[in-house]
């Protein structure tokens, strides 16, 4: 049994009376590719946003390599509105902003591509190196850290070669074809030297050929950078192809988890995706 990397403990995310994520507990272990699937509006991206610190959970705890990165319990008027279970099991309040969580080694991509649109491909990846900058504000502004800057550029170029975007380095990021923009977003996330990568619908809008390339690409970077991957995806071919385990979310709650083969034959999952007849 390999070590646990990410652990979600009874995560509930409630926006007022709306329960977006309901008592979700999941585990991602070292070196795994885990997929989170579910119909539209099931709360997958909300789970991502809780993990990466965009939202503080209403209740529950998120642990990254044994370190609590988010923990909270319902407070104030949420106490009355709260409908989930495990209330007051979590006594501490831990909040981390997304940048801190990225620094702890968890990087993400976005469902709707969020590249820096005025910047080149090269700069998009380079800017992610900024968080590890050792030079202080003044010496960076006066370009005294020549060596460090050169190293950053070198690393960035290396990364672009690995992901196959070296040719396009001076193009404006948003002028790239769609598939390459997705790839660039992954490259940018990799540039932060993560040990865990969260991919939010990496195959959205791709044709079958591109999707096939993508699954090879994800496997390749996973091995090369020894990553652990959690991904949200609608493309079942991709999901079944690359994931070791799958969690299925419906209306904010987990309804199944298991290997691709188990999930494919799970009646609950089939019902959630296809619906049941009224009869």
């Amino acid at each position: 049994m390999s070590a646990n990397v990410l652990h979600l403990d009874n995560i509930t995310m409630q926006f007022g009376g709306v329960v977006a994520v309901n008592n979700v507990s999941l585990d991602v272990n070292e070196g795994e590719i885990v997929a989170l699937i579910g119909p539209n509006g099931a709360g997958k991206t909300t789970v991502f946003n809780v993990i990466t610190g965009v939202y503080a959970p209403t209740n529950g705890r998120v642990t990254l390599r044994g370190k609590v990165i988010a923990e909270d319990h319902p407070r104030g008027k949420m106490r009355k509105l709260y409908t989930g279970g495990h209330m007051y099991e979590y006594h501490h309040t831990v909040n981390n902003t997304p940048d801190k969580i990225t620094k702890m080694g968890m990087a993400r991509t976005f469902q709707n591509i969020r590249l820096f649109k005025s910047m080149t491909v090269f700069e998009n990846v380079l800017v992610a190196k900024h968080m590890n900058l050792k030079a202080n504000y003044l010496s960076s502004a006066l370009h005294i850290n020549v060596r460090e800057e050169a190293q950053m550029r070198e690393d960035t170029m290396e990364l672009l070669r690995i992901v196959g975007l070296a040719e396009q380095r001076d193009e404006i990021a948003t002028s790239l074809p769609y598939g390459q923009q997705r790839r660039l977003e992954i490259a940018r996330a990799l540039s932060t030297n993560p040990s865990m990568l969260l991919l939010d619908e990496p195959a959205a809008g791709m044709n079958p050929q591109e999707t096939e390339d993508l699954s090879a690409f994800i496997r390749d970077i996973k091995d090369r950078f020894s990553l652990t991957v959690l991904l949200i995806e609608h493309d079942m071919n991709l999901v079944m192809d690359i994931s070791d385990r799958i969690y299925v979310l419906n209306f904010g709650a987990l309804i199944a988890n298991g290997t691709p083969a188990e999930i494919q034959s799970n009646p609950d999952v089939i019902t959630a995706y296809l619906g049941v007849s009224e009869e």
Partner: protein
Amino acid sequence: MTKVSSLTKPKKIDRGTLISIVLICAVYVLAFVLEQVMPSTSMLFTVLKKGATYALVAVSMNLLNGFTGLFSLGQAGFMLIGAYTYAIFTIPVAQRLSVYQYYNGGLVQFSLPVIVAVALAGLFAAFFAFLIGLPVLRLKSDYLAIATLGFAEIIRAIFQWDKIGILTNGSNLRLFPTFTDDFNIRDADGNVVLYLSTLVPFLITGVCVAFIVLLINSSYGRAFKAMRDDETAAEAMGINLARHKMLAFCTSSFFAGVGGAMLAMYANSVQAKSFTTAMTYEILLMVVIGGIGSVTGSVFSSFLFVACSEWWLRFLDQEQVWGGWKVPLLRNGFRLVVFSLIIMMVVLFFRKGIMGTRELPDLFRKRVKKTGKESAKR
């Protein structure tokens, strides 16, 4: 260990940058020579001095609005702080009694060298920016603009408060020429041997703008631009939003403070009532006309703006008779009508300002590469 391939090495100097540097040096030499040969009362020098001041403030505003994406309208407030700091610390000790005649010579009883006072002006402005920034930088777009605008007005009101007259001399501080003295170098008889009163503001602006350009092209500058393009993504890439916004805000305010000090030098007096919201709008106008996100554009448009409003359009304010024909409409205030029309034209036909996001070196590059890089030097 740190082997750097030639491919990734940042190209030190290309053709466009080289031409730009030469051009900028030429401008400095020209300013210096003109100052020696032309009468110092010429309108040209007024425009150049004031233009240099506004250029710095416009670039500092562009750093915030154009490069960091923070829509702040507090520039006049920070200039006011800078101007007062400079004035308070540079009035010669001997003249403090006559300046602060109602306040027993005022609180500060020493004076500092010009360069120290200028640096202090910037630092004070940056310090106030830090204090204001703590609550205000959580706000976004229009709300930030309103909050900073409000701050500028509050600062102005405070400086006009007569209870602190011991510092501010009842909102009206006059510097005395013995100290600022236009920076001209004189011989023993008081004759000017070297005119430097235009070159010195030019140099201050040059150094400050060079710093801002270097900053924009540094790792921090890239982080600022990342925040402008997409805050959520920038934060996900490990950029601490609060810290970087504060850095940009304080840096911008520092240079606005220096600009305020330069305005005090130029005007030889400081009056709180002149640092109005209208002043911030003028600076914003320069930034917009020059191109949001272009340092070169801000500098160009500042000089153009000052030249138009102070010099080239002045004739519109006086009655003119051309060959026995009295030109209609020309009267006091007509200049502003024409000026507004010109601005409307610019905004209509140059949507992105004169320069867009291009910089000076981009003008000399053969083909416009879409690199989006700003390797400009002022």
